[in-house]
């Protein structure tokens, strides 16, 4: 019997219309755990690096993490993996919600699509019965609308549906996959889904998920349940409201947006409004939010309330979470009411709420600069909000200028030319970033921004505070119950970290400490992404219920595979290194590893080079960011170094 996992994958060949249920190798679980780790292994083995993202040979993998479907609190994530049309590197985007557990209960750990369907289809997984069904009647339908239509059509209200909207169908590089209150939005995976001709995947399951050592496992779950309210009653003082508690940022609950509106950038990530927030705006926004927010809701088996049902009078209901509440608002220099309204349309179209507003603001900036002309923008309304709706409609339909903007700021700037490249200023590895511009270089964040495989800061930051606490008293108070640290030395790093003076950014934390802090934070994300655990209860917040000390017992008691901290660290390193290898094989090099030029006002080129040198070494990579033969050997991945050597990426003598 297999524990925690089902031991089966669904293999769908869309070109031939073939469906297979394939038993998986338990050894892979021991090596990679599941989720992101195993996805990377499949991509490495089966998709040659020359493959174009929109090739039938590209795979689109939907995985439920290893512990999804078990009672592990907050473990419900789907990890979607493919090659990104935007970065051309490995894309992994994830979503919470209810889809992944349903897939496990249907008896599968993942669905692997290959080929391309000649017509728009949807997949219906109902336990052992799996069908490819015609979706031509759903062509052009909104993502949320599609989910409802499919449930009605199947007469199965309990089916969980992940769907794309018009953006995915039209292969827009910012296209998301939507699923109820959740979405897998980053890196254009919705475009790959549309390219393969998949409108949606509906799943319903009524089978058991087994636990190897039930009593121990439930005891651990109960400890997490006990800890969450305790932690809830002790918000971390001295940090911005969304970082004080657990969960993914509680944007739906909180109305105080002083921090975001005054520190994040408006428009095309350039304009800071230092004195924006006042009592009047606070009251107005509070009223807006409370009027449209029907209920705070969660994902499967999680007590948090990170999302909300949003019903704006006159437009259909949708669900929202996290920061998309403000991305449209701020990109358009508008207000919260506009943000909630346009997000509804954007959710139905299925687009990434981070990249899309920035792409539109970028387009308008180019127009104001005269790089895009009246002819390019023919038909655009004159009011600000109207322009955003107009651009959104053009982008998802790939009409006129929308066809160019649909490729994101990097590729659009290349196509437009005439100096447009300078306006695509907020990218890492061709991918739009949070609209955040700061003063002094932070060495830890420099490394995370530069080297994160997903090119998305929230996917690597977390357990270590973002900034030093001003007083020793606050620091001592913080480290008092900081049990999550993998090593006591991290407490010292924090205690010694000052806002100003000798022990402050950019030279403190020191290079060595910075490497260790980044490595710890990243490790936690890689564990979460293999298990399907929500970062909001683990790698993202300060002092979370899941950490490196209780994770080994969770995994061991659920799966029956004996793992200790060292073993878990080794698996994580293997997964991390394999992702790097996948991307290296697709051309990623040191030269690509840099934050946006203007991310910090004060930059330190010499220090930054040293940071990268040290970090690569720390990770067991060579000075170009390529894993060395020794590292790969130690991780049991000689097959990777052989391949890299054959391609001349790793030189034989270099080792």
């Amino acid at each position: 019997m297999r524990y925690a996992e089902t031991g089966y994958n669904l293999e769908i060949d869309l070109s031939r219309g073939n469906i297979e249920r394939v038993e998986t190798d338990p050894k892979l679980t021991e090596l990679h755990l599941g989720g992101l780790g195993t996805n990377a292994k499949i991509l490495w083995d089966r998709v040659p690096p020359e493959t174009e993202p929109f090739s039938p040979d590209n795979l689109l993998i939907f995985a439920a993490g290893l512990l999804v479907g078990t009672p592990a609190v907050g473990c419900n994530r789907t990890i979607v993996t493919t090659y990104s049309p935007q970065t051309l590197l490995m894309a992994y985007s994830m979503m919470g919600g209810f889809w992944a557990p349903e897939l496990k209960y249907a008896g599968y750990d993942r669905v692997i699509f290959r080929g391309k369907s000649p017509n728009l289809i949807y997949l219906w997984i109902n336990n052992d019965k799996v069908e490819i069904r015609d979706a031509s009647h759903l062509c052009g339908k909104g993502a949320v609308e599609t989910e409802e239509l499919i449930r009605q059509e199947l007469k199965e209200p309990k089916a969980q549906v992940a769907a794309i909207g018009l953006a995915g169908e039209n292969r827009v590089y910012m296209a998301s996959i939507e699923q109820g209150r959740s979405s897998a939005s980053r890196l254009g995976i919705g475009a790959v889904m549309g390219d393969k001709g998949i409108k949606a995947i509906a799943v319903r399951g009524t089978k058991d998920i087994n636990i190897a050592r039930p009593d121990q496992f439930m005891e651990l779950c109960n400890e997490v349940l006990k800890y969450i309210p305790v932690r809830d009653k002790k918000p971390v003082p001295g940090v911005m409201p969304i970082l004080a508690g657990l969960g993914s940022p509680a944007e739906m609950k909180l109305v105080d947006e002083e921090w975001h509106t005054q520190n994040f950038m408006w428009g095309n990530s350039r304009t800071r409004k230092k004195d924006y927030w006042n009592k009047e705006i606070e009251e107005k926004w509070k009223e807006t939010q409370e009027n449209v927010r029907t209920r705070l809701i969660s994902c499967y088996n999680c007590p948090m309330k990170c999302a909300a049902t949003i019903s704006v009078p006159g437009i259909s209901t949708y669900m929202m979470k996290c920061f998309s509440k403000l991305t449209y608002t701020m990109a358009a220099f508008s207000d919260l009411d506009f943000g909630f309204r346009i997000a509804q349309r954007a959710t139905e179209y299925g687009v990434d709420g981070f990249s899309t507003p920035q792409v539109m603001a970028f387009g308008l900036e180019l127009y104001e600069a005269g790089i895009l002309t009246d002819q390019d923008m023919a038909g655009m309304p004159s009011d600000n909000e109207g322009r955003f709706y107009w651009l959104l409609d053009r982008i998802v339909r790939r009409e006129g200028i929308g066809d160019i903007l649909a490729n994101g700021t990097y590729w659009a700037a290349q196509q437009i030319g005439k100096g447009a490249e300078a306006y695509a200023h907020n990218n890492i590895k061709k991918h739009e970033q949070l609209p955040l511009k700061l003063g002094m270089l932070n060495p830890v964040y420099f490394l995370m921004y530069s080297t994160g495989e997903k090119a998305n800061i929230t996917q690597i930051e977390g357990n270590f505070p973002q900034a030093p606490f001003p007083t020793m008293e606050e620091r001592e108070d913080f480290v008092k119950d900081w049990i999550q640290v993998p090593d006591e030395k991290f407490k010292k790093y924090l205690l010694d970290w000052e806002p100003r003076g000798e022990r402050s950014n950019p030279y403190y934390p020191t290079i060595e400490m910075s490497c260790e802090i980044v490595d710890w934070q990243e490790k936690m994300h890689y564990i979460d992404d293999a298990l399907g655990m929500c970062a909001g209860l683990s790698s993202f917040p300060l002092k979370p219920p899941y950490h490196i000390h209780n994770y080994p017992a969770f995994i061991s008691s659920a799966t029956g595979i004996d793992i200790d901290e060292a073993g878990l660290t080794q698996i994580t390193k293997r997964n991390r290194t394999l992702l790097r290898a996948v991307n290296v094989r697709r051309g990623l090099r040191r030269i690509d590893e840099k934050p946006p030029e203007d991310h910090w006002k004060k930059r330190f080129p010499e220090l930054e080079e040293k940071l990268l040198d040290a970090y690569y070494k720390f990770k067991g990579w060579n000075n170009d960011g390529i894993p060395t033969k020794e590292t790969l050997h130690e991780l049991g991945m000689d097959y990777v170094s052989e391949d890299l050597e054959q391609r001349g990426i790793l030189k034989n003598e270099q080792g």
Partner: protein
Amino acid sequence: MSKVKKKVKVIKIDVDKCNGCRACEVACSAFHAKPKYSSNNPARSRIRLIREPLKDKYLPVYAGEYAKAECTGKDKYVIDGKEYDECDFCRASCPSRDLFKEPDSGLPLKCDMCEDDPPQEKPLCVQWCLNDALTYEEREEEVEEEVKLEDVEIGLESMVDKYGLQKVMDTVARMAKKE
């Protein structure tokens, strides 16, 4: 008849506090797995969350008695502008729906308030509901002591009422011969 004290176990359901997470289903199905906690599967849970997020319908319902046949007429309720089917509130394991039945055998399920040895402080669904949509209360009620009739006796009594004692006895005797 004399009065006796009886302990009544009550789960209070506050639907306004429900965040829709279905942890109650997870905990219930894990508790009732054999061996305990060895598996989980919401389809086996004795509490189900009727959940329609876009309509803001969240209704935890507990498994009650087995019903042989579905009701003929069905009513609709409108509460706070939300339309509910009568079935949404019904606890029965009934042929009209797939709730409260073992998914493989189809056998009916019924909430037992997590009877356990040693006893649980509260049913598992309540323990796992950190949002207090489900809370547990025990109250004592004074009830009149009565002779509890066996199920068969209740049935027979109603037959006797309807057809008379002699007819029922004749019928039983004839049925006994056939056996």
